[in-house]
Protein backbone atom coordinates (compact mmCIF):
# COMPACT_ATOMS: atom_id res chain seq x y z
CA UNK A 1 0.00 0.00 0.00
CA UNK A 2 1.26 3.43 -0.89
CA UNK A 3 -0.27 5.21 2.11
CA UNK A 4 -0.25 4.41 5.83
CA UNK A 5 -2.18 7.23 7.49
CA UNK A 6 -4.40 10.30 7.08
CA UNK A 7 -4.31 13.51 9.12
CA UNK A 8 -7.12 16.05 8.97
CA UNK A 9 -7.23 19.60 10.31
CA UNK A 10 -10.32 21.79 10.65
CA UNK A 11 -11.44 24.91 12.46
CA UNK A 12 -14.56 27.10 12.10
CA UNK A 13 -17.22 24.94 10.45
CA UNK A 14 -15.13 21.85 11.10
CA UNK A 15 -17.73 19.80 12.91
CA UNK A 16 -20.04 19.57 9.88
CA UNK A 17 -17.18 19.14 7.41
CA UNK A 18 -15.68 16.31 9.47
CA UNK A 19 -19.05 14.65 9.82
CA UNK A 20 -19.58 14.74 6.05
CA UNK A 21 -16.18 13.13 5.39
CA UNK A 22 -16.23 10.56 8.18
CA UNK A 23 -19.81 9.48 7.44
CA UNK A 24 -18.84 8.83 3.82
CA UNK A 25 -15.84 6.61 4.55
CA UNK A 26 -16.67 2.88 4.60
CA UNK A 27 -16.21 0.71 7.71
CA UNK A 28 -13.46 -1.05 5.76
CA UNK A 29 -11.35 2.11 5.33
CA UNK A 30 -7.85 0.69 5.78
CA UNK A 31 -5.90 3.67 7.21
CA UNK A 32 -5.82 5.31 10.62
CA UNK A 33 -7.12 8.90 10.68
CA UNK A 34 -5.86 11.53 13.14
CA UNK A 35 -7.97 14.67 13.51
CA UNK A 36 -7.45 18.13 15.00
CA UNK A 37 -10.49 20.37 15.16
CA UNK A 38 -10.07 23.72 16.91
CA UNK A 39 -12.35 23.70 19.89
CA UNK A 40 -12.73 25.65 23.14
CA UNK A 41 -10.40 24.45 25.94
CA UNK A 42 -13.30 23.67 28.24
CA UNK A 43 -15.26 21.64 25.68
CA UNK A 44 -16.58 18.21 26.51
CA UNK A 45 -16.00 15.22 24.24
CA UNK A 46 -19.20 16.05 22.35
CA UNK A 47 -17.40 16.39 19.00
CA UNK A 48 -15.95 12.90 19.28
CA UNK A 49 -19.25 11.34 20.28
CA UNK A 50 -21.08 13.18 17.51
CA UNK A 51 -18.61 12.00 14.87
CA UNK A 52 -18.60 8.47 16.22
CA UNK A 53 -22.39 8.33 16.05
CA UNK A 54 -22.29 9.50 12.42
CA UNK A 55 -19.45 7.37 11.05
CA UNK A 56 -19.15 3.65 10.26
CA UNK A 57 -15.61 3.95 11.64
CA UNK A 58 -14.73 3.94 15.33
CA UNK A 59 -14.10 7.57 16.32
CA UNK A 60 -12.44 8.09 19.70
CA UNK A 61 -10.61 10.73 21.67
CA UNK A 62 -6.86 10.18 21.33
CA UNK A 63 -5.19 8.84 24.47
CA UNK A 64 -1.55 9.37 25.30
CA UNK A 65 0.82 6.50 24.37
CA UNK A 66 -2.01 4.73 22.54
CA UNK A 67 -1.07 2.42 19.66
CA UNK A 68 -2.36 3.67 16.32
CA UNK A 69 -4.72 1.12 14.78
CA UNK A 70 -5.71 0.96 11.10
CA UNK A 71 -9.24 2.10 10.39
CA UNK A 72 -9.65 3.98 13.67
CA UNK A 73 -10.22 7.74 13.92
CA UNK A 74 -8.41 9.64 16.71
CA UNK A 75 -9.55 13.10 17.71
CA UNK A 76 -7.28 15.48 19.67
CA UNK A 77 -8.81 16.25 23.10
CA UNK A 78 -9.66 19.90 23.87
CA UNK A 79 -6.68 21.93 25.17
CA UNK A 80 -4.04 19.29 24.25
CA UNK A 81 -1.78 19.06 21.24
CA UNK A 82 -1.87 15.70 19.50
CA UNK A 83 1.48 14.34 18.30
CA UNK A 84 2.35 11.21 16.33
CA UNK A 85 5.39 9.27 17.50
CA UNK A 86 7.67 7.52 15.01
CA UNK A 87 6.89 4.19 16.73
CA UNK A 88 3.26 4.75 15.62
CA UNK A 89 1.86 5.67 19.00
CA UNK A 90 0.12 8.90 20.00
CA UNK A 91 1.33 11.58 22.41
CA UNK A 92 -0.46 14.52 24.00
CA UNK A 93 1.11 17.77 25.10
CA UNK A 94 0.04 20.84 27.06
CA UNK A 95 2.81 23.00 25.64
CA UNK A 96 2.23 26.56 24.37
CA UNK A 97 -0.42 27.32 21.82
CA UNK A 98 0.85 27.35 18.24
CA UNK A 99 -0.73 30.06 16.06
CA UNK A 100 -3.11 30.67 19.00
CA UNK A 101 -4.33 27.08 18.82
CA UNK A 102 -4.16 24.09 21.13
CA UNK A 103 -4.69 21.53 19.68
CA UNK A 104 -2.65 22.76 16.72
CA UNK A 105 -3.02 21.35 13.23
CA UNK A 106 0.61 22.20 12.41
CA UNK A 107 1.88 20.18 15.39
CA UNK A 108 -0.13 17.11 14.35
CA UNK A 109 0.85 17.43 10.69
CA UNK A 110 4.56 17.99 11.33
CA UNK A 111 4.96 15.09 13.75
CA UNK A 112 2.86 12.80 11.53
CA UNK A 113 5.02 13.75 8.53
CA UNK A 114 8.14 12.72 10.44
CA UNK A 115 6.49 9.43 11.42
CA UNK A 116 5.01 8.49 8.03
CA UNK A 117 7.03 10.41 5.43
CA UNK A 118 5.66 9.90 1.90
CA UNK A 119 3.01 7.48 3.19
CA UNK A 120 0.95 10.31 4.71
CA UNK A 121 -2.08 12.15 3.37
CA UNK A 122 -2.81 15.56 4.91
CA UNK A 123 -6.20 17.23 4.59
CA UNK A 124 -6.94 20.89 5.40
CA UNK A 125 -10.62 21.78 5.76
CA UNK A 126 -12.66 24.87 6.55
CA UNK A 127 -11.33 27.40 9.05
CA UNK A 128 -10.89 31.09 9.80
CA UNK A 129 -7.12 31.23 10.39
CA UNK A 130 -3.94 29.87 8.81
CA UNK A 131 -3.22 26.84 11.01
CA UNK A 132 -2.33 23.76 8.98
CA UNK A 133 -0.66 25.55 6.08
CA UNK A 134 2.90 25.13 7.41
CA UNK A 135 2.09 21.58 8.50
CA UNK A 136 0.75 20.68 5.06
CA UNK A 137 3.87 22.13 3.45
CA UNK A 138 5.96 19.97 5.80
CA UNK A 139 4.01 16.88 4.73
CA UNK A 140 4.57 17.76 1.08
CA UNK A 141 8.29 18.45 1.68
CA UNK A 142 8.67 14.95 3.11
CA UNK A 143 6.99 13.39 0.08
CA UNK A 144 3.43 13.08 1.38
CA UNK A 145 0.21 14.07 -0.37
CA UNK A 146 -1.84 17.20 0.33
CA UNK A 147 -5.57 17.72 -0.05
CA UNK A 148 -7.30 21.04 0.60
CA UNK A 149 -11.01 21.67 0.68
CA UNK A 150 -12.09 23.93 -2.20
CA UNK A 151 -12.42 27.32 -0.46
CA UNK A 152 -15.66 27.92 -2.37
CA UNK A 153 -17.25 24.98 -0.50
CA UNK A 154 -15.82 25.93 2.91
CA UNK A 155 -17.89 27.58 5.60
CA UNK A 156 -14.81 29.66 6.34
CA UNK A 157 -12.25 29.95 3.56
CA UNK A 158 -9.12 31.50 5.17
CA UNK A 159 -7.58 28.21 6.24
CA UNK A 160 -8.01 26.47 2.85
CA UNK A 161 -6.74 29.60 1.07
CA UNK A 162 -3.65 29.79 3.30
CA UNK A 163 -2.93 26.09 2.75
CA UNK A 164 -3.27 26.41 -1.02
CA UNK A 165 -0.95 29.38 -1.06
CA UNK A 166 1.69 27.90 1.24
CA UNK A 167 1.68 24.19 0.47
CA UNK A 168 0.79 23.77 -3.22
CA UNK A 169 -1.53 20.81 -2.52
CA UNK A 170 -2.00 17.86 -4.90
CA UNK A 171 -5.80 18.11 -4.74
CA UNK A 172 -8.24 20.97 -4.21
CA UNK A 173 -11.61 19.29 -3.81
CA UNK A 174 -15.20 20.14 -2.98
CA UNK A 175 -16.07 18.79 0.47
CA UNK A 176 -18.28 15.99 -0.91
CA UNK A 177 -15.44 14.56 -3.02
CA UNK A 178 -12.81 14.33 -0.28
CA UNK A 179 -13.97 10.99 1.18
CA UNK A 180 -14.03 9.39 -2.29
CA UNK A 181 -10.50 10.59 -3.05
CA UNK A 182 -9.25 9.34 0.32
CA UNK A 183 -10.69 5.92 -0.51
CA UNK A 184 -9.04 5.89 -3.94
CA UNK A 185 -5.68 6.91 -2.49
CA UNK A 186 -6.01 4.35 0.31
CA UNK A 187 -6.47 1.56 -2.23
CA UNK A 188 -3.24 2.40 -4.12
Amino acid at each position, binding site marked *: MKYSAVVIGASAGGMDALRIILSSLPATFPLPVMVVNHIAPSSTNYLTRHLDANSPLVVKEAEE*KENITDGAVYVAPPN*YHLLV*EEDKTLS*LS*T*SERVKYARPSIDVLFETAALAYGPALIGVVLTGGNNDGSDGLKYIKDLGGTGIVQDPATAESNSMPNAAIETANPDYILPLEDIAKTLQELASL
Partner: protein
Amino acid sequence: MTLNDNVNIEIKLLLEAIYLKYGYDFRGYAHAHIKRRLLNRLKTLGLKRISDLQKLILYDKDAFARLLKDLSINVTEMFRDPSFYLSLRNEVIPVLRTYPFIKVWHAGCATGEEVYSMAIILKEEGLYERTRIYATDLNSIVLDKASEGVYVADQIKNFTSNYQQAGGKGSFADYYSASHGLAMIDRSLKEKIVFSNHNLVTDGPFGEMNLILCRNVLIYFSRELQDHVIGLFTESLGGSAYLCLGSKESLKYSGHADMYDEISKKEKIFRKKLLWPRSQ
Protein backbone atom coordinates in the same frame (compact mmCIF):
# COMPACT_ATOMS: atom_id res chain seq x y z
CA MET B 1 14.26 8.06 5.12
CA THR B 2 17.98 8.13 5.69
CA LEU B 3 18.01 11.82 6.51
CA ASN B 4 15.45 11.35 9.27
CA ASP B 5 17.40 8.32 10.57
CA ASN B 6 20.48 10.52 10.81
CA VAL B 7 18.52 13.21 12.63
CA ASN B 8 17.31 10.60 15.12
CA ILE B 9 20.86 9.38 15.70
CA GLU B 10 21.99 12.95 16.30
CA ILE B 11 19.14 13.56 18.74
CA LYS B 12 20.11 10.43 20.66
CA LEU B 13 23.70 11.65 20.88
CA LEU B 14 22.61 15.15 21.92
CA LEU B 15 20.42 13.81 24.76
CA GLU B 16 23.31 11.61 25.87
CA ALA B 17 25.61 14.65 25.82
CA ILE B 18 23.13 16.70 27.87
CA TYR B 19 22.88 13.91 30.40
CA LEU B 20 26.65 13.41 30.69
CA LYS B 21 27.46 17.11 30.84
CA TYR B 22 24.56 18.60 32.83
CA GLY B 23 22.81 15.61 34.45
CA TYR B 24 19.39 16.35 32.92
CA ASP B 25 18.01 13.12 31.53
CA PHE B 26 15.63 13.53 28.60
CA ARG B 27 16.53 10.15 27.10
CA GLY B 28 13.27 8.55 28.21
CA TYR B 29 11.01 11.39 27.10
CA ALA B 30 8.40 10.94 24.38
CA HIS B 31 10.31 11.50 21.17
CA ALA B 32 7.99 13.62 19.00
CA HIS B 33 7.79 16.50 21.45
CA ILE B 34 11.56 16.64 22.05
CA LYS B 35 12.30 16.41 18.35
CA ARG B 36 9.89 19.19 17.46
CA ARG B 37 11.43 21.46 20.09
CA LEU B 38 14.97 20.68 18.96
CA LEU B 39 14.20 21.25 15.28
CA ASN B 40 12.53 24.57 16.13
CA ARG B 41 15.52 25.64 18.22
CA LEU B 42 17.82 24.68 15.34
CA LYS B 43 15.85 26.91 13.00
CA THR B 44 15.87 29.83 15.48
CA LEU B 45 19.62 29.55 15.91
CA GLY B 46 20.19 29.25 12.18
CA LEU B 47 22.05 25.98 12.66
CA LYS B 48 21.98 23.19 10.11
CA ARG B 49 22.34 20.02 12.14
CA ILE B 50 21.53 18.74 15.63
CA SER B 51 25.23 17.93 15.98
CA ASP B 52 25.95 21.68 15.63
CA LEU B 53 23.55 22.25 18.51
CA GLN B 54 25.40 19.58 20.50
CA LYS B 55 28.71 21.38 20.02
CA LEU B 56 27.09 24.66 21.07
CA ILE B 57 25.51 23.45 24.30
CA LEU B 58 28.56 21.43 25.38
CA TYR B 59 30.70 24.57 25.48
CA ASP B 60 28.09 27.24 26.24
CA LYS B 61 26.18 26.93 29.52
CA ASP B 62 23.83 29.79 28.69
CA ALA B 63 22.90 28.19 25.38
CA PHE B 64 22.09 25.03 27.33
CA ALA B 65 19.95 26.97 29.82
CA ARG B 66 17.89 28.31 26.92
CA LEU B 67 17.52 24.85 25.43
CA LEU B 68 16.47 23.47 28.81
CA LYS B 69 13.69 26.05 28.90
CA ASP B 70 12.57 24.79 25.49
CA LEU B 71 12.57 21.17 26.53
CA SER B 72 10.60 21.56 29.73
CA ILE B 73 6.93 22.48 29.56
CA ASN B 74 5.94 25.25 31.92
CA VAL B 75 2.45 26.06 30.75
CA THR B 76 0.15 26.14 33.73
CA GLU B 77 -2.47 28.25 35.48
CA MET B 78 -4.09 28.56 38.89
CA PHE B 79 -6.80 25.94 39.52
CA ARG B 80 -6.14 24.48 36.09
CA ASP B 81 -8.96 22.00 35.41
CA PRO B 82 -11.26 23.48 38.08
CA SER B 83 -13.32 20.29 38.32
CA PHE B 84 -10.20 18.48 39.51
CA TYR B 85 -9.73 20.94 42.37
CA LEU B 86 -13.39 20.64 43.26
CA SER B 87 -13.01 16.86 43.54
CA LEU B 88 -9.84 17.31 45.56
CA ARG B 89 -11.75 19.53 47.97
CA ASN B 90 -14.70 17.18 48.22
CA GLU B 91 -13.05 13.76 48.18
CA VAL B 92 -9.52 14.16 49.53
CA ILE B 93 -9.62 17.09 51.97
CA PRO B 94 -12.09 15.37 54.36
CA VAL B 95 -9.61 12.50 54.77
CA LEU B 96 -6.57 14.78 55.16
CA ARG B 97 -8.52 16.60 57.86
CA THR B 98 -8.23 13.52 60.07
CA TYR B 99 -4.41 13.69 60.05
CA PRO B 100 -2.37 15.63 62.64
CA PHE B 101 0.18 16.70 60.04
CA ILE B 102 -0.13 16.74 56.26
CA LYS B 103 2.70 16.31 53.79
CA VAL B 104 2.07 17.22 50.15
CA TRP B 105 4.48 16.79 47.27
CA HIS B 106 3.80 18.75 44.13
CA ALA B 107 6.14 17.19 41.56
CA GLY B 108 6.82 19.16 38.38
CA CYS B 109 5.40 22.39 39.82
CA ALA B 110 6.73 24.62 36.99
CA THR B 111 6.04 28.29 37.81
CA GLY B 112 3.99 27.43 40.89
CA GLU B 113 0.43 28.43 40.01
CA GLU B 114 -1.00 25.06 40.99
CA VAL B 115 1.03 24.94 44.21
CA TYR B 116 -0.56 28.19 45.36
CA SER B 117 -3.95 26.83 44.30
CA MET B 118 -3.42 23.90 46.66
CA ALA B 119 -2.29 26.28 49.42
CA ILE B 120 -5.48 28.32 49.00
CA ILE B 121 -7.67 25.24 49.33
CA LEU B 122 -5.82 24.07 52.44
CA LYS B 123 -6.10 27.55 53.93
CA GLU B 124 -9.82 27.78 53.29
CA GLU B 125 -10.31 24.34 54.80
CA GLY B 126 -8.34 25.35 57.90
CA LEU B 127 -5.58 22.79 57.27
CA TYR B 128 -2.75 24.95 56.00
CA GLU B 129 -1.12 25.53 59.40
CA ARG B 130 -0.45 21.82 59.78
CA THR B 131 0.70 21.24 56.23
CA ARG B 132 4.04 21.22 54.50
CA ILE B 133 4.06 21.41 50.71
CA TYR B 134 7.20 20.27 48.90
CA ALA B 135 7.11 21.85 45.46
CA THR B 136 9.73 20.52 43.07
CA ASP B 137 10.81 20.94 39.50
CA LEU B 138 13.89 20.02 37.49
CA ASN B 139 14.33 23.54 36.19
CA SER B 140 15.73 26.08 38.68
CA ILE B 141 14.73 29.05 36.54
CA VAL B 142 11.05 28.17 36.81
CA LEU B 143 11.48 27.27 40.50
CA ASP B 144 12.73 30.80 41.17
CA LYS B 145 9.63 32.14 39.44
CA ALA B 146 7.47 29.80 41.48
CA SER B 147 8.91 30.95 44.79
CA GLU B 148 8.56 34.61 43.78
CA GLY B 149 4.87 34.03 43.06
CA VAL B 150 4.50 36.99 40.75
CA TYR B 151 2.20 36.60 37.76
CA VAL B 152 1.00 38.74 34.90
CA ALA B 153 -2.17 40.50 35.97
CA ASP B 154 -4.12 39.77 32.79
CA GLN B 155 -4.24 36.13 33.88
CA ILE B 156 -6.16 37.08 37.03
CA LYS B 157 -9.53 37.04 35.31
CA ASN B 158 -9.00 33.46 34.20
CA PHE B 159 -7.56 32.45 37.60
CA THR B 160 -10.56 33.99 39.38
CA SER B 161 -13.03 32.17 37.18
CA ASN B 162 -11.16 28.90 37.73
CA TYR B 163 -11.11 29.53 41.50
CA GLN B 164 -14.85 30.01 41.57
CA GLN B 165 -15.53 26.88 39.49
CA ALA B 166 -13.16 24.96 41.78
CA GLY B 167 -15.44 25.65 44.74
CA GLY B 168 -13.54 28.62 46.18
CA LYS B 169 -15.09 29.71 49.46
CA GLY B 170 -13.85 33.28 49.68
CA SER B 171 -12.81 36.02 47.33
CA PHE B 172 -9.85 35.29 45.08
CA ALA B 173 -8.75 38.92 45.39
CA ASP B 174 -7.73 38.19 49.00
CA TYR B 175 -4.86 36.02 47.78
CA TYR B 176 -2.88 38.52 45.74
CA SER B 177 -2.04 42.17 45.51
CA ALA B 178 -1.88 43.81 42.11
CA SER B 179 0.36 46.61 41.00
CA HIS B 180 1.91 47.73 37.72
CA GLY B 181 0.30 44.94 35.74
CA LEU B 182 1.60 42.25 38.07
CA ALA B 183 -0.18 40.13 40.66
CA MET B 184 1.83 39.14 43.72
CA ILE B 185 0.76 36.08 45.65
CA ASP B 186 0.04 36.81 49.31
CA ARG B 187 3.03 36.12 51.54
CA SER B 188 0.99 34.02 53.97
CA LEU B 189 0.39 31.44 51.23
CA LYS B 190 4.12 30.83 50.94
CA GLU B 191 4.77 30.03 54.60
CA LYS B 192 4.42 26.28 54.39
CA ILE B 193 5.82 25.75 50.91
CA VAL B 194 9.36 24.48 50.39
CA PHE B 195 10.55 24.90 46.81
CA SER B 196 13.38 22.63 45.77
CA ASN B 197 15.09 21.18 42.77
CA HIS B 198 14.19 17.57 42.06
CA ASN B 199 14.45 15.54 38.89
CA LEU B 200 11.89 12.75 38.64
CA VAL B 201 14.07 10.79 36.25
CA THR B 202 17.34 10.82 38.17
CA ASP B 203 16.50 11.64 41.81
CA GLY B 204 15.09 9.42 44.55
CA PRO B 205 11.82 9.29 46.52
CA PHE B 206 10.52 11.77 49.12
CA GLY B 207 9.34 10.12 52.35
CA GLU B 208 5.83 9.41 53.61
CA MET B 209 3.72 11.84 51.63
CA ASN B 210 -0.03 12.03 52.25
CA LEU B 211 -0.69 13.49 48.83
CA ILE B 212 1.32 13.70 45.63
CA LEU B 213 0.25 15.89 42.74
CA CYS B 214 2.00 15.39 39.42
CA ARG B 215 -0.16 16.74 36.64
CA ASN B 216 0.70 16.86 32.96
CA VAL B 217 4.24 15.65 33.48
CA LEU B 218 3.91 11.94 32.71
CA ILE B 219 2.50 12.62 29.23
CA TYR B 220 6.01 13.69 28.19
CA PHE B 221 7.55 10.41 29.35
CA SER B 222 7.86 7.09 27.54
CA ARG B 223 5.88 4.16 28.95
CA GLU B 224 9.03 2.84 30.65
CA LEU B 225 9.81 6.16 32.27
CA GLN B 226 6.19 6.56 33.38
CA ASP B 227 6.49 3.21 35.12
CA HIS B 228 9.71 4.32 36.82
CA VAL B 229 8.18 7.56 38.09
CA ILE B 230 4.97 5.92 39.32
CA GLY B 231 7.28 3.54 41.21
CA LEU B 232 9.02 6.54 42.75
CA PHE B 233 5.64 7.95 43.84
CA THR B 234 4.53 4.60 45.23
CA GLU B 235 7.66 4.53 47.39
CA SER B 236 7.10 8.11 48.51
CA LEU B 237 3.46 7.68 49.52
CA GLY B 238 2.39 6.49 52.94
CA GLY B 239 -0.40 3.89 53.23
CA SER B 240 -3.82 5.15 52.05
CA ALA B 241 -2.19 8.27 50.60
CA TYR B 242 -3.36 10.00 47.43
CA LEU B 243 -1.85 10.38 43.98
CA CYS B 244 -3.29 12.92 41.53
CA LEU B 245 -2.37 12.91 37.84
CA GLY B 246 -3.33 15.10 34.88
CA SER B 247 -6.73 14.58 33.30
CA LYS B 248 -5.35 12.68 30.28
CA GLU B 249 -2.84 10.63 32.25
CA SER B 250 -3.25 7.16 33.70
CA LEU B 251 -1.58 4.32 35.59
CA LYS B 252 -2.21 2.09 32.59
CA TYR B 253 1.42 1.73 31.60
CA SER B 254 2.66 1.17 35.11
CA GLY B 255 3.27 -2.16 36.82
CA HIS B 256 2.22 -0.44 40.05
CA ALA B 257 -1.38 0.15 38.94
CA ASP B 258 -2.79 -2.63 41.16
CA MET B 259 -1.44 -0.90 44.24
CA TYR B 260 -4.00 1.87 43.84
CA ASP B 261 -7.74 2.31 44.13
CA GLU B 262 -9.35 4.73 41.73
CA ILE B 263 -11.07 7.51 43.69
CA SER B 264 -12.12 9.59 40.69
CA LYS B 265 -11.81 8.13 37.21
CA LYS B 266 -12.47 11.45 35.51
CA GLU B 267 -10.18 13.57 37.67
CA LYS B 268 -7.43 10.93 37.90
CA ILE B 269 -7.32 10.76 41.69
CA PHE B 270 -5.89 7.49 43.02
CA ARG B 271 -5.38 6.18 46.53
CA LYS B 272 -2.62 3.82 47.47
CA LYS B 273 -3.93 0.63 49.02
CA LEU B 274 -2.98 0.08 52.63
CA LEU B 275 -1.70 -3.41 51.89
CA TRP B 276 -0.95 -5.03 48.62
CA PRO B 277 0.11 -8.51 47.64
CA ARG B 278 3.86 -8.50 47.25
CA SER B 279 5.02 -9.86 43.95
CA GLN B 280 7.37 -12.83 44.21
